[in-house]
């Protein structure tokens, strides 16, 4: 049966392919059949001699080869050869365009081309430093180092999730000690990321009044310096308001004037709401762990147990803009802090608060000139402790509660910074900078003031902030530290070995591109 069926189909196919039945196969209205010229077809006429009787020429345009053929300059064989080459070229081009189209369709779907995934170099900084202080055996006054090696990854998932953000600091692999309640401190793994956050814009029509809810770890909205990326800072050293003391200087003491003090932490784990009203009033309101950027390492992923009684600090910042780039802001942090289980230096147990005012003036009258300043004051609970030293509670008896044994202290710091970017002439792209700052670790005590004047010169190779900034910075720091306070609890002080009492010189080369 199958043999008969196959035979039937063969006969039917043969009939349909028979030239006589070609017209029947055509669907649609009858048309006069134009003579179709196929380039590959050979023509008997090609063998005829030139200058023979006029003949029919192909339809569809008067190209050069058609004219040449018409005038008898080329033979039909040559014409066919030219046409064949043209057809081949067209077919090749269309094949290549098809391939490109196919790749375009594929690549268009790549997240990196849809702004969903991006990456950039936040800051790669090579630093030379020289410190005038006497240094212990094995340490040096001069050194080369990588100050920052930060890659940034970010993207926009949708209008509702307008940004995700991860910043990797490739030197964040050192183990950091936290503050145990007793005994020796344990090295705790630090986080490889410095920043990692998600923005959520819940209702589009509420933005920018209620712009985003931000959650994660990031530079805190505490003043100007704290929020400025390391790749965009005007001086090399961090200001005293984020960190002062330690680093080989005198250790913590019962006056609360020694050891490292991180008065305002740069980064923390938080959730906050941010927005801008009438394009003039910007605000941020949130709650944070108050435990520094390494604190993720203290969280148990199985039980959820984490460090230092978190979350426990509330903050708010309002910033009033005079114009697009000049503003004044008011910030406050309120809550509790702990000395045990924390990773922030100089925090005691008990009431914690900060009040800050900052302002920036970017001149439109003298383009290139900018001045900014911040003033901060606040209280740290009793027994403020350097991270890694055992501490357990607010009592001021070191044998009982560990820590520094200091009472609760009021601290204060401020700075002013001014710079001028030269935009033409011989010194184009040079930027002189000057900064003066003070830090008073205990306002109720004299003879403990840190002061510093930084004189700097920056040369920009490329300067398109915030995306691109390649530069070399030269800073000289005139440092002074009055001492460790007054009274019977004051330990002896040797300014020769205190890095914060001796001048320093820095040269830093930076690349930033995103």
């Amino acid at each position, binding site marked *: 049966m199958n043999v008969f069926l196959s035979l039937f189909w063969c006969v039917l196919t043969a009939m349909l392919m028979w030239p006589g039945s070609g017209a029947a196969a055509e669907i649609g209205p009858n048309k006069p059949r134009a003579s179709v010229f196929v380039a590959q077809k050979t023509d008997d006429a090609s063998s005829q001699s030139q200058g023979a009787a006029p003949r029919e020429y192909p339809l569809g345009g008067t190209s050069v080869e058609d004219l040449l053929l018409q005038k008898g300059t080329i033979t039909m064989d040559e014409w066919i050869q030219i046409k064949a080459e043209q057809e081949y070229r067209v077919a090749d081009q269309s094949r290549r365009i098809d391939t490109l189209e196919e790749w375009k369709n594929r690549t268009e779907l790549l997240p990196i081309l849809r702004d969903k995934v991006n990456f950039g170099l936040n800051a790669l900084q090579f630093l030379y430093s020289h410190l005038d202080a006497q240094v212990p055996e094995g340490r040096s006054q001069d050194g080369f180092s990588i100050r920052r090696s930060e890659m940034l990854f970010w993207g926009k998932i949708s209008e509702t999730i307008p940004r995700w*953000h991860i910043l990797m600091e490739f030197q964040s692999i050192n183990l950091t000690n936290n503050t145990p309640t007793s005994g020796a401190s344990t090295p705790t793994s630090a986080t490889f990321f410095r920043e990692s956050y998600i923005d959520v814009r819940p209702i589009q029509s509420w933005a*920018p009044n209620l712009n985003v809810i931000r959650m994660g770890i990031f530079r805190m909205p505490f003043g100007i310096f704290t929020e400025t*990326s390391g790749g965009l800072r005007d001086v090399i050293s961090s200001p005293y308001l984020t960190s002062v003391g330690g680093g080989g200087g005198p250790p913590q003491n019962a006056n609360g004037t020694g050891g490292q003090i991180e008065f305002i932490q740069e980064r923390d784990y938080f959730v906050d709401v941010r927005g801008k009203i009438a394009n003039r009033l910007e605000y941020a309101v949130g709650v944070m762990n108050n435990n520094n950027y390494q604190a993720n390492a203290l969280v148990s992923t199985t039980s959820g147990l984490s460090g230092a009684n978190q979350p426990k600090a509330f903050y708010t910042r309002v910033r009033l803009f005079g114009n697009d780039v000049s503003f004044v802001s008011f910030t406050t942090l309120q809550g509790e802090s702990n000395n045990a289980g924390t990773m922030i230096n100089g925090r005691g147990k008990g009431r914690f608060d900060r009040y800050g005012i900052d302002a920036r003036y970017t001149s439109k009258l003298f383009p290139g000139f900018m001045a900014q300043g911040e003033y901060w004051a606040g209280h740290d609970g009793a027994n403020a402790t350097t991270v890694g030293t055992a501490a357990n509670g607010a009592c001021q008896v070191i044998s009982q509660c560990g820590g520094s044994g200091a009472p609760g202290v009021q601290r204060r710091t401020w700075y002013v910074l001014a710079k001028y970017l030269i935009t033409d002439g011989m010194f184009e792209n040079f930027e002189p900078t000057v900064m003066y700052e003070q830090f008073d670790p205990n306002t109720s005590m004299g003879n403990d003031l840190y002061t510093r004047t930084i004189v700097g010169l920056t040369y920009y190779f490329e300067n398109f902030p915030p995306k691109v900034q390649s530069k070399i910075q030269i800073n000289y720091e005139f440092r002074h530290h009055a001492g460790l306070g007054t009274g019977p609890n004051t330990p002896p002080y040797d300014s020769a070995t205190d890095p914060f009492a001796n001048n320093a010189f820095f040269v830093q080369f930076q690349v930033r591109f995103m």
Partner: protein
Amino acid sequence: MTRVSATVLAVFLGIAACSTYQLFPAEVMDGVDPNFDFSQWRMIPNQALERKIQLGGSILHSERKDANVTIVVTQLPIVEHPAYGPKDMGKRSGEFAVTFMGQIEPPMLQRGNRLIVVGTTKAAKVVTVDDMPRSLPSVSAKCLHIWNTGGRDIADFPSYGAGYETLEEVTFCATAQ
């Protein structure tokens, strides 16, 4: 007293939040055609001459000559949210040229910056973009407002540089036309 102050502040902020963001003086905006069809104008630019319009976009190319600036702009819709201004929706709708009588600093003319222009439509103008001459519908600008975003959307800018950045924005008005 504190409660009254808080209430007054809340009312003030509420009013401020709901108020419309106005970039240009009222007299500049007077007579602007609110129903201007950009796509039609782009196809037949010489049919709608001397109409006062407002358009938003992103700077593609600019050229400064004497006291004039010619800017080639990719048109973008102007939105209220998440931030007022031109917003990239991911769809290309075409380019137009802006001629401005006045000075604009080079950083404000960098590619990708967002702008809003108010001006009158003029005959199509031939401009050279990437060494290719192109005939584009043109606007003679009365006023321009430029956001120095360098290619980012206005709402995305403050968090763009792994920190906080203020967004520079400037309004320029033509000295003479």
